[in-house]
């Protein structure tokens, strides 16, 4: 917004002297903000993404993000903070979805319908306040370079609270995600965890929208975790690898986006997608003659999107 990237306003080339280049990158406050916010969000997205893939919530994640579009644009109309608008809208929707839990399974039409209506609502809000039409692109595709210092603090606080909450409920959540019935018999509060996780998902979605936008959220939240789960079946390692990948994509995307006149969210998404394809191809190639470790990408994505919650 304040700093519109374009080739004409800023042409900087890397010197390929790493120290000098990094000094140049970090002399800008907007790059410092982008790196802090991007890293915090990537760590959270990597951890939450592991559970999203495990709990088959990819479609619900997208639904939350798209639904958040109505909240974000509504906030613009009301003159409120976009992140707050997103957070309110996604938390309420998420808690409701978590409360419905298993009853949402197979309700793809209902979720999809709500999703379409939310987007339509968002476009209505945008028409009402044409002054902010430029923000629509930011909300849809993210503009991390425009994130304000205040927003960075905001995102960081919510992300840290969400990570702490995930740490506390890590084992029961893993148990309930793998086998809700047995966990329930062991006294794990499965329904409560479902609602709590959806609220954490809402926070993560809202924070990730700042980085990659509503439409590219899949890149940051699903692809790193999905790639990690191809590589290792050990939960702790898979979460660690998902976090590393997400952080790496964001850093690489920011650096490339700094030197090239194109948005970082494109590069973040591109790196995530290419890595996922690479991991999948290599591992399927290695395991090809033996028992297949994993289904192909299309199968994973179609099934996850199709199964809803």
């Amino acid at each position: 917004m304040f700093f519109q990237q374009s080739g004409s306003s800023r042409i900087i080339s890397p010197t390929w002297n790493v120290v000098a280049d990094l000094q140049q990158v970090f002399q800008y406050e907007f790059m410092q903000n982008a790196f802090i916010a991007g890293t915090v969000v990537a760590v959270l997205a990597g951890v939450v993404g592991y559970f999203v893939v495990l709990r088959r919530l990819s479609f619900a994640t997208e639904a939350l993000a798209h639904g958040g579009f109505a909240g974000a644009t509504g906030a613009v109309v009301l003159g409120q903070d976009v992140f707050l608008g997103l957070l309110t809208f996604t938390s309420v929707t998420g808690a409701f979805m978590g409360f419905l839990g298993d009853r949402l399974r197979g309700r793809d039409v209902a979720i999809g319908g709500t999703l379409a209506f939310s987007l339509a609502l968002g476009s209505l809000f945008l028409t009402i306040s044409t002054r902010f039409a430029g923000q629509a692109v930011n909300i849809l595709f993210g503009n991390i370079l425009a994130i304000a210092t205040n927003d960075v603090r905001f995102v960081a606080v919510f992300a840290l609270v969400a990570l702490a909450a995930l740490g506390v409920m890590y084992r029961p959540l893993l148990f309930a995600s793998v086998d809700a019935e047995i966990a329930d018999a062991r006294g794990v509060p499965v329904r409560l965890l479902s609602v709590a996780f959806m609220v954490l998902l809402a926070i993560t979605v809202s924070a990730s929208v700042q980085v990659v936008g509503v439409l590219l959220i899949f890149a940051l939240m699903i692809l790193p975790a999905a790639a990690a789960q191809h590589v290792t079946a050990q939960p702790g390692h898979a979460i660690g690898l998902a976090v590393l990948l997400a952080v790496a994509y964001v850093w690489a995307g920011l650096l490339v986006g700094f030197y090239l006149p194109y948005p970082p969210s494109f590069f973040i998404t591109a790196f995530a997608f290419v890595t996922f394809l690479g991991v999948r191809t290599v591992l399927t190639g290695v395991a090809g003659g033996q028992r297949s470790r994993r289904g192909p990408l299309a199968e994973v994505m179609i099934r996850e999107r199709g199964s809803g919650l």
Partner: protein
Amino acid sequence: MLDLKADEVQHSPGAPAGGAAVVLDDVAVTLGGRMIWQHANVCIPRGALFGLIGPNGTGKTTLLRVLLGQLAPTAGSVRILGAPPRRGNAAISYVPQRRTLDADLALRGRDLVLLGLTGHRWGFSRASKSDWDAVSAALRAVGADAYADEPVGILSGGEQQRLLIAQALVTHPQLLLLDEPLASLDLRSQHEIVHLVDRLRRERNIAVLFVSHDLNPLLEVLDSLIYILDGQPTVGALDEVLQSDLLSQLYATDVHVHSTADGHRFVVGA
């Protein structure tokens, strides 16, 4: 041991051996205003292997839910290991009915078993050496150590069932509830699982309630049977229940019990 009349079983709560694992005294369950079953008088001694049979929808899983403390009976009293049922009782382990684990579940068998031990605990903490030792012991007990480091999704149905039994065993339960563990297993795996359960309950004095549609794999090992007929769970010794007319009445279709020359029995539908 095989005579299972409730009044003849010693009732000494907390006794390590002998005594009853489960006592139902005139228990009734109503769900949504509908009577599921009533007048249930059941006693399962410690270390006994009971079958639970009955057509679909007669309330077999409902009985398991009562024992797990997930469902309060409308009438009668339930005692589990000398105490009222309660959710999360570590002395009870449960393997629910399922088809198979998700093919792409990114979890090793070892992690699945560990969840049985520490999955209910809050707070972030790495599994301790003694936790992993307990997991390894449970894996060895069911003979699953060879594939404990593989992702569970790629394992066969029989291998997955062994892991789930290991998960159930890792807390050293005194009562094991198995809901259709043989469904979707091939004959050999069925045989192996049945004999595994039989060996474990003898070694560890675990009372087992084994829900199964197919009686044949269980005939060699069962102590007794609970069947739910006309809305009443009833306990019978194997010989009493293995009658063509009773089973035909139970399943509302012709069922025959045949005996081979060497004394083996098998049940066939007409």
